[in-house]
């Protein structure tokens, strides 16, 4: 197995040596359409968000007085109120803690499982995979009662991991780790040629070494993707968190923010919109951080084998 230089995209070739007209046409066909698709998709993804932005900077922020252009001028009042009248900062920290730990642990657990499902053949493998898929399909609002039952006991015995603690919530989220991510990762482990790990095993590496030193680095893009997806799912999770966290200090963003708009019609929509925007910040930062792993094209190097 020889290490290969990082691959270059196929579109890299052809440009400079060709004549100007060809270069122009090839820019349109090679790059131009990409920008077109990108711009259209960005427009599609942004316009509902612009609506939220406009509500967030509108001091009279109710849901429907806001169009795309703020009607009552622009002010930071909603953002100020968000911090002054709610425990937003605290919720934010809780969310980042819960989502960060849960997604990191969840990626690790599901990577382990995906490796086994992809590379090993054992009794009950297909059944296990299918069960993972099926268990996800059970409606969650019914399971709430059972989760209550379990955690009432847990809270009695070990209050440190019971209701109103981030760790209890993380435990519940880890329950869903395998189901959500194993499939995703197994698909990628499957695309890596078997010769890679076979040759490593021939060289005397143990299964753990193959996993940690060879497989994981090769699937970095998908580890990053999984981590991000898992982070987003966790930070936006509401159903379980809302019954789990009643203490204001323990709440996550989704639970705390939901409390702002429910019941009292939509008086708080401006504040809510401001909070919604800020909720997206950790996700965007994490994505920025992970992007280089996602797009670094690492996997390609090893394939020739």
């Amino acid at each position, binding site marked *: 197995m020889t290490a290969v230089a990082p691959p270059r995209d*196929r*579109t890299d070739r052809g440009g400079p040596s060709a004549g100007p007209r060809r270069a122009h046409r090839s820019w349109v066909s090679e790059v131009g359409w990409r920008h077109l698709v990108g711009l259209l*998709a960005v427009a599609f*993804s942004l316009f509902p968000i612009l609506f939220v932005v406009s509500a967030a900077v509108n001091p009279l922020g109710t849901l429907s007085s806001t169009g795309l252009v703020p009607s009552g001028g622009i002010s930071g009042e909603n953002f100020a109120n968000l911090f002054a009248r709610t425990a937003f900062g605290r919720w934010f920290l809780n969310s980042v803690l819960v989502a960060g730990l849960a997604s990191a642990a969840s990626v690790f657990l599901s990577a382990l499982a995906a490796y086994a499902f992809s590379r090993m053949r054992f009794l009950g493998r297909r059944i296990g995979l299918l069960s993972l898929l099926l268990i996800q399909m059970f409606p969650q609002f019914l399971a709430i009662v*059972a989760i209550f039952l379990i955690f009432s006991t847990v809270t009695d015995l070990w209050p440190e991991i019971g209701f109103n603690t981030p760790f209890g919530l993380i435990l519940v989220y880890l329950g869903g780790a395998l189901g959500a991510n194993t499939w995703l990762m197994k698909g990628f482990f499957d695309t890596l040629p078997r010769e890679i790990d076979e040759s490593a095993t021939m*060289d005397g590496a143990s299964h753990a070494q193959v996993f940690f030193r060879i497989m994981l680095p090769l699937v970095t*893009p998908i580890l990053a*993707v999984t981590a991000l997806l898992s982070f987003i799912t966790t930070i936006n999770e509401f159903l379980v968190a809302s019954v789990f966290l009643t203490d204001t200090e323990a709440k996550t963003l989704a639970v705390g923010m939901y409390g702002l708009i429910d019941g009292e019609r939509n008086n708080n929509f401006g504040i809510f919109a401001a909070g919604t925007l800020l909720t997206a910040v950790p996700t965007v930062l994490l*994505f920025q951080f992970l992007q280089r792993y996602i797009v670094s094209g690492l996997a390609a190097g090893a394939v020739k084998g």
Partner: protein
Amino acid sequence: MENREFGAGPATPVPHRGPVPPRHHAGPVTVTGLAVKVVVLGLTVGIAVWAAFPLVDAGAWAGLTLLVAATAGLCYLYLTRRYVPAKYLVPGTLFLLAFQVLPVLYTVATAFTNFGDGHRGSKQEAIVAIQTASVTQVPGSTEYALAVATTGDPATGPLVFLLTDPATGTVSVGDAGGLRQLAAEDVTVDAGGRVTAARGYTLLTIGQAGARSEEITNLAVPTAGGAIRSAGLSRAYEGKAQRTYDAGCDCIRDAESGKVWTADADLGAFVAADGERLAQGWKVGVGFQNLTRVVTDPNISGPFLRTLIWNLCFAVASAGGTFALGLLCALALHSPRVRGRTIYRVLLILPYAMPSFAMLLVWRDMFNTDFGLLNNLLGMHVDWFGNAWSARAAVLLVQLWLGFPYMFLVATGALQAIPAQLTEAASVDGASRWQSFRRITLPLLLVALSPLLIASFAYNFNNFNAIYLTTEGAPFPADNPSVGATDLLITYTYRLAFGGQGAQYGFAAAISIFIFTLVAIIAAVTFRRTRQQEEVYS
């Protein structure tokens, strides 16, 4: 320390560490490996010991046995050389069992009970609730000013009520034995007549009383007409339970009217001869009653097929639509020549980064006929949610918006994993870009992503929020408020099970067993097909 290497690896520009150096003494037990193992197992055992103390305190021996067995099992698994797959599967599976499988099994079990509002607890709890609810003040009786006191230590001593009759000012001491008057010179009272000190008694503060709340609530001083009970900590009243349970006839009897409600073990309720049922019931097993109701109830079976077809279309269109758009975006940005890819990508994942419940509400408002952004921008007057097809199109559009960033991310990751050499080779062979996409990129992508498409289908099949927070199932036919054009099976059953007179969890669980079976069959059949693709690689 292997973890550190794994963490550092990908950050280096050429992260591939090359093959692991060949080992001549091919012993798989390395020092780092062993150290990690020892630390992790040690921590596991440590956590188990920590968890064991409260179990011992509570006398939960079954729980303790389970804990010891699980810990021993874990240690054995990671110290033996056998069961390699299990070493990788067990950690996640433990969580899965505890927090997913167990709740699901519990839910399935409730399908065979009448569990729901009015039938949540045990019969004993129902009896207590009925008796407590029937305690009324004895007509014409005295309202006492109360002080809770003890003859011993505030934390443990026997409790008494010091009761002042506001009319006469006399103070009595009451306990389970009855009421005795105290001499006036032994007590001091405040302006409201409440005892502030009494010789031979220590008064409890509210904090101290709070610690013994249950004893105080249960303390009843028997009187001729009933019993004196506390109403809070500063007042007491003479009350009498109008309804009492009689174990002899297994019934509740009303003292005033003499009416009798007999326990019905099949219904989990006390029922009178005239059919009147007491509201406070209890949980009983009902066998297959809930399941047969799902099949025989015309309200459920009637619109079932129509709802199922739309539900399938919704799930397929949501999964397929988001995949197509996500893949298109990923392909478009999969080129180093596109400037600003980083910005594009961040903007594209924004819909996924926003809390989805908030955005669903925003979308609902954008579809408003008269004031919605969509109609205003397009200069139309479409009653989006008032018409079956436009409502369906609307929810699918919302799903597309919410879901495509997920597929975009996954497809971006997947494209990176496809060796560029393969597509390069194809283009050298003269294949057009479309051909190389069709013949090489897409099949490879599907290997990685088709299980995800199944998962996405399954998720959307039960996507409760997508409907509940937008159309709520609308539009509904005027003559049938129970099933609407955009209803999924899940929203429709939710309305049946929780929309009526209180939540019917047992019934809801029965319906979800049916839905689950249905999705499971569809998914399992589709899953069989992925086997062929998978085998290509194994």
